[in-house]
């Protein structure tokens, strides 16, 4: 891993620790957010001058900045002694306002020679050229007295959502993860584990001299309620998120603070706004997707308000065994769970890029997507719903890509046979066409939920739900005409719901009912399976009822 890569990881970790966004960091460095984004993303290089500025911004010595994310974050907290004691960038006071009790005056210690090879603490003597404490007692005693327990400090970023599927940075565990520490920082040979000092990890970083006065941890900029912080910077495009919040403020100002009127206005403008965001999000995209491809016969609506012949697989199923038992008098306590923002999560689906073309080979090409004419296999599980939804008629049917992939997944897991594909109308596909837009909307929603901003939440919800329902052939949205995308996204929402039911089933819960776009009724302790909340990967409990029992 090159130094620049390490530096990028370090910067991401420090930003997360400080609760900064790219725009905040950019302001601190005298760059623009776009420049920071490019440098972090690999499009431009971090120069040595930038490194100096970064060191000044975070008040870290330069060497610590380049020593890896774990080390840098450690030094930021004062948990890890810096490699260059007293070598802070000139001009910065060496003792910024301190939140911890002042460390034992480093000046009192005799000049050190480096980390003791046994315990890593600063050592004064050396043996055979290696700095080393002369006895075990000295090693133990060398633990700096100012190492206040950092774990209860709550420095661990309580990232919302246990299932946050972001790249796990070192900062996620706040203090050094053991493996990261091992690989990144140079380990002295044959480190003997002395009695670990009272610190959260058992792996002391081999560091230099006594820690400089603890640096005040930068306070996160967002005044969110404790426990909900911003997710990793760089997850969503800052420009797009700012466009969304800027629009909300604009409309709010135009309505002079009247929330009702502002909400009505925002919802009225939701479709043009989301199309503007889509265009902005695809500006730097690799593929230019077709916006008005010729509509295939199968996707043509039979009448202006009617539907076409694609089966979306909307789930509607009840567990007949449990209901029969309930009739007999057995009681079951059932919880109705509600998925959050189902269509927003469903925007991550394999979408065809160009116009659909016929493919009669009968083999599913995973790099393509579209609609397929299939004959599904039989489904004989009574405790799990049919991934195809409740289709009554046997025989062939047209399904979208998401349903086909779900059926193929079920076949791979051995739940049923694979469907037989007769015809496909496909085009080369990508899962990331709407990803930038989705992330921006998700980030805006998450921040709004954290700040209790229901106006923005309603606005985002209007945007993504209207987007999904009008990208087909709709007179309400004339800037795009892709009925195949509409079916694929909706089918993906249903497939996601089915996968949650499957997850519950695997975990031992009883799936009682699955209906609508996002309702899942289970019996059992669902809290062990699904996290609770309003975030995208969490579920809400709608209500609990008793099935069966005496009338």
């Amino acid at each position, binding site marked *: 891993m090159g130094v620049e890569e390490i530096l990028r990881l370090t910067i991401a970790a420090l930003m997360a620790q400080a609760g900064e966004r790219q725009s905040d960091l950019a302001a601190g460095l005298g760059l623009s957010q776009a420049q920071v984004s490019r440098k972090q993303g690999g499009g431009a290089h971090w120069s040595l001058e930038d490194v100096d500025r970064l060191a000044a911004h975070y008040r870290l010595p330069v060497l610590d900045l380049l020593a890896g994310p774990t080390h840098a974050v450690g030094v930021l907290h004062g948990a890890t002694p810096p490699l260059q004691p007293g070598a802070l960038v000139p001009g910065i006071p060496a003792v910024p306002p301190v939140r911890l009790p002042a460390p034992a005056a480093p000046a009192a210690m005799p000049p050190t020679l480096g980390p003791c090879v046994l315990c890593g603490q600063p050592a004064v003597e050396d043996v055979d050229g290696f700095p080393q404490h002369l006895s075990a007692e000295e090693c133990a005693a060398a633990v700096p007295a100012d190492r206040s327990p950092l774990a209860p400090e709550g420095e661990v970023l309580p990232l919302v959502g246990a299932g946050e599927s972001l790249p796990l940075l070192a900062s996620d565990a706040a203090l050094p993860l053991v493996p990261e520490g091992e690989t990144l920082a140079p380990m002295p040979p044959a480190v003997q584990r002395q009695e670990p000092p009272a610190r959260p990890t058992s792996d002391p970083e081999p560091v230099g001299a006594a820690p400089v006065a603890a640096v005040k941890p930068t306070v996160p900029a967002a005044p969110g309620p404790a426990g909900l912080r911003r997710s990793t910077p760089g997850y969503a495009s800052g420009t797009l998120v700012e466009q969304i919040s800027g629009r909300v403020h604009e409309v709010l100002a135009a309505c002079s603070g009247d929330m009702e009127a502002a909400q009505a206005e925002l919802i009225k403008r939701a479709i043009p706004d989301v199309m503007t965001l889509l265009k902005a999000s695809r500006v730097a995209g690799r593929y*230019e997707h*077709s*916006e*008005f*491809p*010729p509509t295939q016969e199968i996707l043509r609506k039979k*009448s*202006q*308000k009617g539907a076409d012949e694609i089966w979306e697989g909307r789930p509607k199923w009840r567990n007949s065994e449990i209901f029969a038992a309930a009739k007999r008098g057995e009681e079951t306590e059932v919880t109705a769970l509600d998925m959050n923002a189902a269509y927003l999560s469903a925007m991550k689906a394999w979408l065809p890029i*160009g*116009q659909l*073309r016929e493919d009669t080979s009968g083999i599913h090409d995973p790099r393509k997507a579209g609609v397929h004419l299939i004959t599904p296999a039989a489904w004989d599980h009574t405790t799990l719903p049919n991934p195809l939804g409740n289709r009554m008629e046997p025989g062939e049917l047209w399904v979208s890509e998401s349903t086909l992939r779900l059926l193929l997944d079920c076949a791979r897991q051995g739940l049923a046979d694979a469907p037989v594909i007769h015809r496909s109308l496909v085009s080369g596909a990508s899962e990331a066409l709407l990803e930038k837009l989705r992330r921006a909307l998700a980030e805006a929603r998450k921040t709004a939920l954290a700040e209790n901003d229901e106006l923005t939440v309603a606005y985002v919800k209007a945007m993504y739900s209207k987007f999904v329902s009008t990208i087909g*052939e709709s*007179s309400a949205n*004339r*800037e*795009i*005409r892709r009925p195949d995308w509409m079916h694929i996204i909706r089918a993906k929402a249903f497939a996601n719901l089915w996968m949650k039911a499957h997850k519950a089933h695997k975990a031992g819960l009883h799936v009682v009912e699955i209906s609508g776009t996002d309702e899942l009724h289970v019996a059992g302790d669902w809290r062990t399976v699904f996290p609770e909340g309003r975030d995208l990967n969490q579920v809400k409990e709608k209500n609990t009822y008793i099935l069966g029992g005496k009338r």
Partner: protein
Amino acid sequence: MAGSPDLWSRWGEFGKFNTRGMKGGEALILELNRIVYSSGIASPVTSRRGLAARLRYLDSAAGRAALREQGVSARTIRAWMRTPGKITPTPANRERIDSAYWHRRRENLIRSGWLKRHLDNDGRGRRMEIYPVDQSQVPAERARPTLQQRSITVRYIWSDLIDAWATQDADTIDEIWDDVISDLDSDYNAYAHVSSIGIGA
């Protein structure tokens, strides 16, 4: 075929090697038809709501003239207009009502300028996507190598195009198509024939 001589020069006998497509002008006409037909009354003529809406639309001198043109007798029209909510026309007459409705609507859209304004979009014009001819059946050495899907913004031609479309003047439409694609690139006349066009309107 109209348009500059340059437009058709690169095509010899269209379809000689199994290229499939249509003239650009024809595709433009199809798209304009789609735009017009996707507006208007949403309910079909077979529903009570759709039928009543159409009859209300046709309740004027011009509407009645259109119905008569379609072949409905004057007596029937009078009976319908007296009690528009309670009539049950025959299927043939329902079709005539629908055709008369669309005939009137097209005329009104053009006369009122809605179509021109809609396509002109305050001077911004509309996006147009050009899908080249389908060359899947053409042998490799005869296929045009550089055809790809194009996407352009089209302004300024819309009024002329709608006038030509209204009067069903195919030559002018060909000339307009020539205008549209001549800015594409040096091989622009490869798009004289297309498989389809999409207009964002």
